[in-house]
């Protein structure tokens, strides 16, 4: 597996399901992220925290998946929250005017304290 491939890892604290995402999210693998989130939502998870700390790059395909997943969460009275948006990745959200489209917290610790 290449260094930039999309990686996902779930940790369930009971209250919150944390998904650490790493690598590059683009049109070739964005659907994998969506599938993962849909599985978590349909298994009844109510709060999903996506940690972007290890994400290297993302394209508009990733934004779309996040929007679709957020809709799905709303339908399930669940929520998807983002954290760990740093540097270039944060800039991509800002450049795309999409930072306000999601609930975003600072670090994972900040997010967990607020959730």
């Amino acid at each position, binding site marked *: 597996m290449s260094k930039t491939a999309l990686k996902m890892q779930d940790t369930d604290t009971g209250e919150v399901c944390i998904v650490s995402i790493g690598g590059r999210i683009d049109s070739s693998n964005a659907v994998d992220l969506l599938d993962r989130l849909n599985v978590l939502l349909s298994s009844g998870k109510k709060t999903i925290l996506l940690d972007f700390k290890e994400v290297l790059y993302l394209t508009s395909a990733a934004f*779309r998946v996040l929007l679709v997943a957020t809709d799905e969460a709303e339908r399930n009275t669940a929520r998807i929250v983002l954290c760990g948006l740093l540097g270039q990745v944060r800039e991509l959200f800002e450049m795309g005017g999409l930072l306000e*489209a999601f609930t975003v917290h600072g670090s994972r610790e900040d997010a967990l304290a607020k959730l």
Partner: protein
Amino acid sequence: MSIDGPALLVVDDNDDNRYTLTRRLTREGYTNLTTATNGREALDLLQSKPFDLILLDIMMPDMNGYEVLERMKAGGELHNIPVIMISALSEIDSVIRCIELGAEDYLPKPFNPTLLRARVGASLEKKRLRDDVKASLARLEQEMDAARKLQLGMLPLYFPACTPEQPVEIHALMETARQVGGDLYDFFYASERLFCFLVGDVSGKGAAAAMFMARTRSLVRMAMQLWRKTSGDPVSPAHVVESVNHELCQNNRDRMFVTLFFGVLDTKTGVVTYINAGHLAPCLLHASGSIEPINEKPAMPLAVRADTVYQERTVTLLPGDAVFVFSDGVTEAMNAAEELYGNERLQAELCATSALSSEEMVQAIKAKVDLFSGDAPQSDDVTMLALRWRPVGANCKSATPGADQYFEAKQSMPLPQTTHIVIRNDAEELAALTTAMERVGAEHDIPEKSLFQLQVALDEMVSNVIKYAWPEGGTHDIDIHITVRDEGVAVEIIDDGRMFDPRDAPKRDKLLPGQRPLAGGVGVQMTKKLVDRIGYARIGNRNHTTLTKLCVLNPAALGREKT
């Protein structure tokens, strides 16, 4: 397949074999049969009409089975016709060779009716499926082609002339990576005075993106029309964008979204009111050749949230200023080494086009992007739109830089202030350039050090032109435009000599044909250190080299207040 059933060709030099085979095939219901007695005859027949299957003997006089196979599989239409080899069981090595050459199957002699039925049937079935797939693909391609024409038909391809009443010089292009694309551009006069222009990019690709693009484009046009009909107020870009956004959010479970830069230019005042909904920052290109991004924090793209409130922002153009709006297919164009064309390269190359008409600007950048990507496949739609505001008093003709009319156009504009001199390709003429630079320096109070560095750089570049641009000799003119703005000084050198891009200077050991060697190379390297930017464009048969030196000028010396 014809109505006579599948067309079969039986090739065998043995009369008995041909007779037996045709009789058995007829008994199986195959009546559309043709026979040949050797390879040459078979190839002639294959050229004259279409066949669905060939039964081919290996050992024949006058071109054997191998040769026929080789010729058929070498390419062209015949490549797709399945071939069953006819052979004695003892010839199994030959059969293997034929399969390797591309034969579909083989039929042992003496002929067994069951095997014959099975193998001919299977080969024909495969051929039919392949033909079906091909036909479906062709149909799909036709559909996509029609869609493409429809889509491109939505984009304005007629660019209204720049006139004193409509003083906007506009040009745009879109090139889709696939048959249909998700980019869009549009422009139109919303009233006598207001010129609207927009560039957008739908997330995703293919047919879905194309349909979303079409929806967006139509909604913007409709919203503008409705606004004009129902409201006496001046057009509010924010309201237009908000209603389009609201509409796009309906029934959008796939969560497509579209980034959009929507601008409205007041052609009387030069004020552009704009909304940037998540789109890349367009470039504001001053007539002097300096450039800046129109870089507010972008708002949310369209179709993300129905209740988004969009804030209008404004930027004021000076006469002759241009706006260049583009999609990420430009800056994310990739070359074979997977490098991106990038924003910096775009800005540098836009600088070099500052003197061009909108059409020339778009074409120059397109050419630069194509040159950069080389053979690498285009992965995203490429869209560019350039507009230049040329209000009354400024020359509206598209001018080739260096032409007198262009100079007059620049002169007739209140700002920026341009000095134009023409020198011959003679080293003694450099003194005239130095004098001109000193005069400009004094007039505008240019800091001594900046002026000195720019002069040295200019001297290097112009000397280089004089020395190398015309190997055949003769007398030639070099046009030099010195433009002063409040952020610095830009000097454009225009010559009709051999092509030379000073930015290629480090690769001096790998000169391309037509490139001229550098004045020791050191000169150009030094020039690069002395000025802040070197721009270059080859337009028509001329080199346009622009040196820009950024420096803080005394605003009073510019004769106007700072904006």
